[in-house]
């Protein structure tokens, strides 16, 4: 019995174990070798990831508050995998940082929060997970204590987030009021399209829109990405966004699937505005992190197309896209972090002539950016096309028109960065950087992922088998 529960909650339990161990280390052996700790952390992430491959439990706990099944396992292992990549990417940076242990404590807490959020079967659990995934993240965003921007970004994030949770909670209270329950299943059954419950639904949507940084709820994103340490920006753009999307789809499809007609237009509009505004801002950015932030906003807009489709294929392509997006974005951010660590430069203009001095880094960056742009043969092409196709199968033609035009604009700014690296001349280029082994591993994994995932159909088939529609 207890083993069954442990098996059901294996991610959470293992992560919790890691947190406790880290705390114990913190308390008892302050002087422990930094490499050993980093090794331990990465190892435990690996263990968590590995745990997902043993068996496929299906069940619920705490009276339906906590659910687990294959889909959720997949989603969790995806974000764990991304976290592992980010952890490896951050290793070099953390070695020179005094509070690396706290970093991991917070990171694991966030991860646990996300696990619970994804697995939730009840709005209470969902809310707890959400806050647990947000509040430590704000602390992480402020982790570069000495940099003025880090604090500013974190401040904006925590305040926006507080406002957003207030709205979300207000929505939840209305839902509770109209349906009499917080349980997903009951809410779904009792949901009537009264204006109060619809108001509740829309406030809930707003909360999600904030987490996935859809326009106009996105303003904190760019500032926070730019301000926070690269690893946290990566985490925000990949894991945080991914987890939010996972639970978003789950709730939207499972709980509000019946009132598809009600939210589809709002979602369509949200998607259109998000990609357009994201693009318009991305094209004028000078800071590479800020640029990637707006690019990630645009990507969220594309993902929303598939969300709006409400089909099984749509969900599969979202998960698939997020997987590809992890590889692409982590790849791009890893290059940024390598350069930022060594030189502290993070303006696009600093990348001028990068190809001359660091050909491998520039090629990796180019491939990652092209994958974000959705240009073949990178996996991004497949991801993006699947998103659009799932929209097409529902006939969201207007949205598709906007999306394809936006793809042209986005190609423009990705290529602009490529141009800067490959074509522009620089009197004073970034010197040749021999990157840390762990960063190299991340880059290699990302490149292999970017270049191969699109062609391997079994990955998509696997995801598809675990997906569901309305």
């Amino acid at each position, binding site marked *: 019995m207890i083993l069954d529960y442990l098996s059901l909650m294996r991610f959470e339990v293992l992560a919790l174990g890691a947190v406790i161990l880290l705390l114990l280390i913190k308390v008892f052996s302050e002087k422990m070798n930094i490499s050993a700790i980093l090794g331990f952390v990465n190892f435990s992430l690996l263990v968590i990831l590995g745990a997902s491959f043993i068996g496929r439990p299906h069940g619920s706990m705490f009276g339906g508050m906590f659910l687990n099944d294959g889909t959720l396992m997949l989603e969790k292992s995806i974000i764990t995998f991304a976290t592992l990549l980010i952890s490896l990417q951050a290793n070099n940076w953390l070695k020179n940082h005094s509070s690396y242990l706290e970093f991991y404590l917070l990171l694991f807490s966030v991860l646990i929060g996300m696990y619970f959020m994804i697995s939730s079967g009840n709005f209470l659990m969902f809310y707890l997970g959400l806050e647990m995934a947000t509040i430590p993240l704000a602390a992480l965003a402020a982790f570069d204590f000495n940099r003025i921007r880090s604090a500013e970004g974190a401040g904006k994030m925590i305040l926006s987030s507080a406002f957003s949770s207030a709205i979300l909670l207000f929505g939840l209270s209305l839902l509770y009021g109209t349906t009499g329950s917080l349980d997903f299943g009951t809410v779904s059954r009792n949901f009537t399209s009264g204006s109060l419950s619809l108001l509740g639904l829309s406030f809930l949507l707003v909360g999600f829109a904030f987490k996935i940084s859809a326009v106009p709820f996105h303003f904190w994103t760019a500032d926070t990405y730019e301000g926070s340490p690269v690893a946290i920006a990566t985490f925000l753009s990949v894991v945080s966004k991914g987890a939010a999307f996972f639970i978003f789809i789950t709730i939207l499809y499972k709980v509000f699937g019946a009132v598809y007609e009600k939210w589809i237009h709002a979602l369509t509009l949200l998607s259109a505005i998000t990609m357009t505004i994201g693009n318009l801002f991305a094209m004028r950015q000078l800071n590479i992190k800020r640029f990637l932030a707006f690019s990630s906003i645009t990507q969220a807009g594309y993902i929303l197309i598939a969300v709006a489709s409400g089909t099984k294929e749509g969900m*599969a392509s979202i998960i698939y896209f997020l997987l590809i997006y992890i590889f692409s974005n982590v790849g791009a951010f890893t290059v940024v972090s390598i350069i930022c660590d060594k030189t502290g430069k993070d303006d696009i203009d600093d990348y001028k002539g990068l190809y001359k001095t660091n050909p491998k880094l520039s090629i990796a960056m180019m491939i990652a950016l092209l994958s974000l742009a959705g240009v073949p043969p990178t996996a991004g092409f497949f991801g993006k*096309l699947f998103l659009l196709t799932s*929209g097409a199968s529902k006939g969201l033609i207007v949205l598709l028109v906007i999306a394809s035009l936006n793809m042209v604009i986005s190609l423009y700014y990705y*290529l602009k960065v490529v141009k800067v690296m490959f074509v522009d001349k620089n009197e004073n280029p970034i010197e040749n950087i021999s990157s840390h082994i762990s960063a190299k591993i991340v880059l290699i994994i990302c490149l292999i992922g970017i270049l191969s995932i699109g062609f391997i159909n079994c990955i998509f*088939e696997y995801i598809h088998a675990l997906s569901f529609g309305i």
Partner: protein
Amino acid sequence: MNLSLLIAIPTLTLISILFVNGKMARVAALAGSFVQLGTALFMLFSYMNLNDVSHLAFEESHVWFAQWNINYHIGVDAISIAMIMLTSVVLVAGVLVSWNIEDKTKEFFFLLVMLATGAFGFFISVDLFVQFFFFELAVIPKFLLIAIWGSGRKEYSAMKLVLMLMGGSSLVLIGILGFYYYSAEAGTPSFDLQTLSQLSLSHEQQMWLFPLLFSGFAVLSAMFPFHTWAPDGHSSAPTAASMFLAGISMKLGGYGCLRVAVFLLPHAAREYSPYIIVLACIGILYGAFVTLKQTDIKLMNAYSSVSHCGFVILGIAMFTKTAMVGAVLQMISHGVMTALFFAVIGMIYQRTHTRMGDEMGGLLKVMPFLSTVFIVAGLTSLGLPGFSGFVAEMTVFVGSFQNEDMFHRFATIFATASIVVTAVYILRAVGISLWGPIKKKEYESLPDASWNEKLAAGILVLSIVIMGTMPLWLSDMISKTTETLFP
């Protein structure tokens, strides 16, 4: 004949370019492109030995993404075979022409072969998704080839070119997705060309899908008024990239217009054909007149490509079988001819360091081989019998004239008028740059073509002459396919 070889060989070439060092890349690229040419020739002969050509040849279909009903479905008909031949010839020539690239040799050849790979894949695939994949594969190579190895305002041109082409392909994408939607509504969603052609769409559906698909592809084939990427792109691109752009890439557009847009939506195509014809005629004459004004010979050829590709569009829109055959012939002919033209212009530029026709002069005396090749290309361009251009243009004209009404007739006559303007600008270019007294002292000691340049030009000239003197097999082969495509 296993068609996948046509993708496998360039892919292997790409990989081998990655793993050899430095200058060996060009050897790998050359070897790969020759093997590809051989394979393409083998395919051509196997196709000609087939008895039944009423359906796709060497068809192969593997499920790729079952959930979307995306299949790796490939197969060829005469049109695609012609295009593949064209691509492999231009590929060999392009590699040869770039033999002496000093700067980033490996990357250059990698991108060059990648560009061709996209074209090969595009021509053999029958599934719209797969086709679109290969269609877009060329984006990066195009951009980087121009932006890194180009000259002049290269970044601007590269960006403009890629964005305009991307704009075109986004229109195509919408069209494809629209088809997907309608096929999903009708039962099974599909990307397959064959399946989609069976789909019966309503008038309105056809009417909005067609302009997207057609104009999307037409951007690539430089139809007026979407042609402005061509002059900028070509004037900045390195020689081989220009050859590929005009010789292969533009053909992707024409092929798409014919084999996708018109094939899938014949009804709407007929409805829209008057507008397309008007645009094509404007493009033909306007391109020719703009060419008249140019003194940069590369720019001149870029604009003349606009004019020549107008014939492709015209032939397609004229909707007679002969005109369509003519359009295909024109694609091949223009592909080889313009590749030759750009190649020789590049070679001359390497020596004289100017592309301004009026700064040259008397080059025939110092480099007879290159000048002769230039003249051959020019004569092909102005449609001299014995070269490929004549065959293609005449087929378009005769085919166009089979339409009985005055509108089509007048359009045809308008289009034919361009042959005079073409003659004027070609002769003008020959007159100012190759003939006349030698303008600069240093030109007198310029060397003539080297072995690789001779080989490249030789292969292209040979193709032009073969097509120009023995066109029957080719036009027969193509017309059989058009008959099955547009019964």
